[in-house]
């Protein structure tokens, strides 16, 4: 397990040829205010009542700070230093994003995942107002202006009936490619209170992306709150493990067999081991969950996908190919996380020996199959 930085055998540039790619995790952000604040770009989509609310009380999440995230990021807004268009927020300017990322990296399809959209805001009606505004903003500023980009339906997911209505309203709308949830919700996402969201997503034929982060209020570890941003970042994987376990063991995939879940920004190298562990426990405790008709790993194999970024980087790199093979090459979807600091460059991330078919699948075709990109 020693890190051997000099041994680069087996490492080769992945996508030098700049084949068209799908980027399944791009973060647009309204200009101006950050977390806790509301950008003026969203004002046109807010009623007078909610405009007054955000101007007097703001947005309160289950975390301490009026402005900013619970753990200070490694750098401002957790973004690349070179991704600030004229000093405004990274991800706030389509022309800049196209010039820096979409064009040079030959992004054929990009899934937009806004992160400061009011999801998880404590006031459920405010959450509904802000997520609605964010949906309108995505169409007005992004997808209607660049057809490569597809929006996520943002919802007040803690109020599932309202969320379901908002999903229903976007059914059949070609601007939207998925429903987006966050990992850290008030309760594990497999629980019944969230089922109307899955019903609506299935009815609208939209996959459900579950992105790292969120403000559920539970301690970030089962042993309490850690001290460091490093721990939060590494911990996204363990949070996603808990979410996946919850979805499977609650029987969500039995109830919604056509539901597609995409786990976003928490890596995938943990997934095979997690499936082995789930299967072992299921063997012993299946009487506790008789509603499961298949082994946990089978649901993972048929209903769950993983985005690549931040891709794990073992030494030697070939071990990553094992980790992919153990969950299935059709399960991984390439993502850059643009404009964040831990951006994965499609030309250099995943320096693996891949067959042409594996490469095309991972960078483009798998996403096409999941999202139905034409």
């Amino acid at each position: 397990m020693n890190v051997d930085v000099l041994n680069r055998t087996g490492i080769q540039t992945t996508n030098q040829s700049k084949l068209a790619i799908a980027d399944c995790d791009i973060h647009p952000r309204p200009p101006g205010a950050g977390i806790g604040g509301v950008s003026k770009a969203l004002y046109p989509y807010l009623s007078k009542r909610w405009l007054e609310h955000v101007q007097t009380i703001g947005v309160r999440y289950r975390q301490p700070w009026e402005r900013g995230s619970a753990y200070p990021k490694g750098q401002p807004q957790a973004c690349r230093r070179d991704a600030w268009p004229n000093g405004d927020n990274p991800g706030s300017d389509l022309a800049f994003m196209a010039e820096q990322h979409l064009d040079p990296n030959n992004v054929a399809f990009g899934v937009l995942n806004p992160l400061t959209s009011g999801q998880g805001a404590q006031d459920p009606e405010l959450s509904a107002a802000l997520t609605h505004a964010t949906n309108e903003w995505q169409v007005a500023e992004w997808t209607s202006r660049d057809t490569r980009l597809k929006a996520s339906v943002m919802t007040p997911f803690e109020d599932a009936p309202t969320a379901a209505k908002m999903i229903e309203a976007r059914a059949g709308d070609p601007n939207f490619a998925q429903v987006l949830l966050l990992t850290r919700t008030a309760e594990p996402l497999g629980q019944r209170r969230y089922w109307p969201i899955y019903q609506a997503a299935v009815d609208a034929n939209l996959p459900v992306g579950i992105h790292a982060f969120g403000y559920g209020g539970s301690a970030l570890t089962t042993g309490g709150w850690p001290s460091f941003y490093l721990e939060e970042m590494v911990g996204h994987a363990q949070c996603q493990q808990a979410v996946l376990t919850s979805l499977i063991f609650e029987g969500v995939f039995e109830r919604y067999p056509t539901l597609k879940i995409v786990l976003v920004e928490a890596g995938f190298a943990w997934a095979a081991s997690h499936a082995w562990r789930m299967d072992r426990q299921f063997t012993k405790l299946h009487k506790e969950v008789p509603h499961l008709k298949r082994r946990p790993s089978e649901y993972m194999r048929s209903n769950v996908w993983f985005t690549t970024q931040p891709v794990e980087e073992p030494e030697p790199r070939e071990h990553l190919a094992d980790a992919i093979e153990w969950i299935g090459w059709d399960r991984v979807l390439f993502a850059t996380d643009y404009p964040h600091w831990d951006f994965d460059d499609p030309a250099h991330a995943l320096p693996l020996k891949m067959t042409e078919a594996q490469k095309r699948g991972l960078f483009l075709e798998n996403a096409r199959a999941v999202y139905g990109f034409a």
Partner: protein
Amino acid sequence: MPPVVDCDLHPTVPSLAALMPYLDDMWRETVVRRGLDELNTIAYPANSPLTARADWRDDRGKPATTAERLGKDALDPFGTQIAICNCLYGVQATFSEDLGAAMARAVNDWIAREWLDRDPRLRASIVVPQQNAELAVAEIERCAPDRRFVQVLLLVSGELPLGRRQNWPIYAAAERLGLPVGIHAGSTYRHPNTPVGWSSYLSEEYINQAGAFQTQLTSLMAEGVFAKFPNLTFVLMESGVTWLPGYLWRLTKFWKGLRSEVPWVADPPASIVQDRVRLTLQPFDGPPEPATITRFMEHMGSDELLLFSTDYPHWQFDGTDAIPAGLDPALAQKIMVDNPLNTYARLRETTQ
């Protein structure tokens, strides 16, 4: 002939009554007057198939209630010559620190009299009131002169992440006395049993124990415990093995990106683990095909990390198949003999 060492077995406290002789007057009276119930936590429901293999239960359905039974079930069939008992009675979960301390004292004395005195093959971990580091240190110091106590036992999920400085007196005492710190599956239930809220099912809770170990290992790393206590070993018990490589790839990536936040972590996480962290074998949580296990073991990158365990009486395997098929026999030998002896300094004292 070097000894086979089983590093994780669980004697069952048959009832609170069994501990009464080991409580002082005040606490004995408290138990009776206040009608204290058993301190068995919800982690291992008594009749759950996970809690005990069917063939390891006695006539009343209880497993591992005597040293004799443990020897017959778990030592003789595996050729085990040394076995480390980790008592999981829930003393760490009492909200009163004083009650926790009294119960920990009783458990340790009960273990010494009813188990260690009765079978010379047995060793034990020191159960401590994890609620309060000061009281935990006192218990470690009280038990440590008995060289049959070979480790300090903590539950993976307590009130604070294990790396936090409030826990450091425990690590200082363990290091000073030459005792590894064994971290075991289990919780004091101060926080939801998953990092995204309370789960509905026992299955989920147990599966998420592996995630708990991952986050607590991150905590020990990030807080600088390995740098502060350079001679301390941590043993991760009963929560899977196969999560380790993929976890370390991710941790290493973020350590590279965010080192400025934790400048005291000077070495790559994987090399810290190789030097300072061990894992017990069961449950291994391996792939179903032996060939994949062989391939997976390359990802582990070291043959020194694993310590043999049956996790008796918990049900992790059938018969005597404690070594996963697909493990190289030479590696199995290291796991059963050399690695435990190299981890627990006190075992050598009685085997040489």
